[in-house]
């Protein structure tokens, strides 16, 4: 369970999250929608522990553990995974090498044995197949020269392999073509389980047509201004954020 309480965050002296509170239970899929610049990516970064964000107030807890003092790697080992809105490229490091390093770093942090290479390879191949990722892409450097859609598919693959306790998906649908969107959404749906919470950030209903959320939250100027069920997303699709702009002002 992810619990965020009264979170105040600034970057470079600019206040971006302004008293944001949000709870996502185990097994719940929550969606966040909100206009550009409302602070959605900032929220995902802060939860994942990216440096240079000043948290002046509030708390973030994952399964009751306060994340404030935890490094990004420690948060990952606790089971937090972030699908980046803009995945990074790492030249020269093959995707396979990267995946193996990540999996084993997390296993080690949790006191588990490293995955044997054959088991690892098998796992990756199967997961890649389900996401229509060609095998030779795994031999290429991480995200290097990948198209926008390929990068997103790779993010979902990583999530599937790392089996996180909680996943934050920041605009996983941007850049995906119609077929890829379906395949990736199916990949995400396959990861839905009673134990796993997901926070899906998106601008569009079409993603939520595939991944039906349990709750929908509207974010504006750094806080959640309205929460509801899946119907809230449909309303937004029609009316936009104009109402909230007035409310928040």
């Amino acid at each position, binding site marked *: 369970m992810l619990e965020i309480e009264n979170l105040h965050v600034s970057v470079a002296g600019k206040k971006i999250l302004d008293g944001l509170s949000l709870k996502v239970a185990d097994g719940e899929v929550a969606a966040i929608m909100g206009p550009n610049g409302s602070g959605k990516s900032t929220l995902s970064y802060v939860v994942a*522990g990216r*440096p240079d964000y000043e948290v002046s107030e509030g708390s973030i807890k994952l399964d009751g553990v306060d994340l404030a003092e935890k490094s990004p790697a420690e948060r*990952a*080992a606790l089971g937090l*995974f*972030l699908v*980046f809105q803009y995945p*990074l490229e790492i030249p020269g490091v093959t995707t396979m090498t990267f995946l193996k390093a990540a999996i084993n*770093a997390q296993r080690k942090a949790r006191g588990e044995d490293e995955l044997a290479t054959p088991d690892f390879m098998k796992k990756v191949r199967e997961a890649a197949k389900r996401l229509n990722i060609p095998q030779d892409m795994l031999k290429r450097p991480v995200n290097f020269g990948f198209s926008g859609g390929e990068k997103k598919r790779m993010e979902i693959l990583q999530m599937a392999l790392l089996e996180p306790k909680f996943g934050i998906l920041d605009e996983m649908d941007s850049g995906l073509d119609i077929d890829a969107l379906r395949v990736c959404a199916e990949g995400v749906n396959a990861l839905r389980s009673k134990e796993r919470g997901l926070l899906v950030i998106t601008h569009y209903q079409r993603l939520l047509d595939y991944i039906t959320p349990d709750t929908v939250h509207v974010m504006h100027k750094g806080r959640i201004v309205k929460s509801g069920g899946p119907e809230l997303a449909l309303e937004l699709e029609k009316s936009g954020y104009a109402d909230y702009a007035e409310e928040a002002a």
Partner: protein
Amino acid sequence: MAAVQETVDKVKTLDVDAYKYGFTTDIESDKAPKGLNEDIVRFISAKKNEPEWLTDWRLDAFRRWQTMAEPKWARVHYPPIDYQDLYYYSAPKTAEGPKSLDEVDPELLRTYEKLGIPLREQEILAGVQADPNARRVAVDAVFDSVSVATTFKAELAKAGVIFCPISEAVRTHPELVKKYLGSVVPVTDNYFATLNSAVYSDGSFVYVPPGVRCPMELSTYFRINERNTGQFERTLIIADKGSYVSYLEGCTAPQRDENQLHAAVVELIALDDAEIKYSTVQNWYPGDSQGKGGIYNFVTKRGDCRGDRSKISWTQVETGSAITWKYPSCILRGDSSRGEFYSIAISNGYQQVDSGTKMLHLGANTSSRVISKGISAGHSQNTYRGQISAHRKARNARNFTNCDSLLIGNSCGAHTVPYIEAKNSSAVFEHEATTSKISDDQLFYCMQRGLSAEEATALIVNGFVRDVLQQLPMEFAVEAQKLIAISLEGSVG
């Protein structure tokens, strides 16, 4: 990739100032008095029982050296070196040169064990029987001024390969030494090479006869142990027509507060259709995190592709030394000869690296390839200096140079100084250079996937140097990967 994991584990077990090879060994040594003059040069020559021609050759070098000035063009800064305040000869105290390993001081053998260098052939052989696929490496170990052990001599002799201390080769194969010594790096080549010619004490000698593919990797480990002692080794490798040899060089030194001088000369000669592959993992002590101590490494390495279709390839991983001044070069004399230079140079703390290569195209249809990866961290300065030139007769000379720099942090510097000169209009020289930085975003991305800052840095750096690592013999590649991680310690966070 298991090696990456190993790298990562290694990093975890180390403190910032923990140079792994920084121990000293208590061995009684036989030293020449401090300082340098003709008597010292004669002393060294006498210690080695050298023939008169060599004594004269040294004295000539010494006299030339006295008229020369230290080069100042490199981008390195250090206080003046007092050449009279150094020892020029130090040998572990065994009456004569050791005849077998049993005569070697056990303390010395333990030193090499600590360094992970197997000197006992029996043990290596035992290992080989257990694993028939394990690659064997013949080792020559040089401790301060003398070679203490050369392994696998007998087996190499069967193939006709000569691999022995150069001091021994002077006695056993004087005609070869006389013919080739100083033929690639002339006595007066440069200040440090000339000094080396006067006072070099030992080093390795290799001769591979025509048509022979050397049956195993040859390797020399150099170790500076004594305080205030300069190490001046001399390596001479001759690959006769149609032969092949792969040679590995490793270096370490104890951790000392004062700087130590290392001025080696390496000469390679490849005759028609011969190939020499020379790999170095240089891990001299780099000084502490404040820039105190460390080795001054002023090295002249040059290969002469004397024969047609010959090939010389340098691969170096430079992680140590307070100061590195080193430009392994190729003279592409034979038609259709080829030179290669693959380099990873890492600097951290207050290290200063000025390194690169020269490819001199003299013959027709000669080609060369230069891949240089410089990584700077901490407060270090890392310069690539490369010269590519084509002589008037070098028809169709080809060079490709790729020179990438990676910066870690904001206090270090990377510099690229290429000199390109073509006197033949058919020459085609290509030069590519990039400078990049490990971005905080890249680090965060890796850390979000569970890697620590150090693991993430090691991974990104290993990716950056990948195409060069692939040029190294397997065992060295693994060692190099570990070294890279160790040298970058404390560079993030």
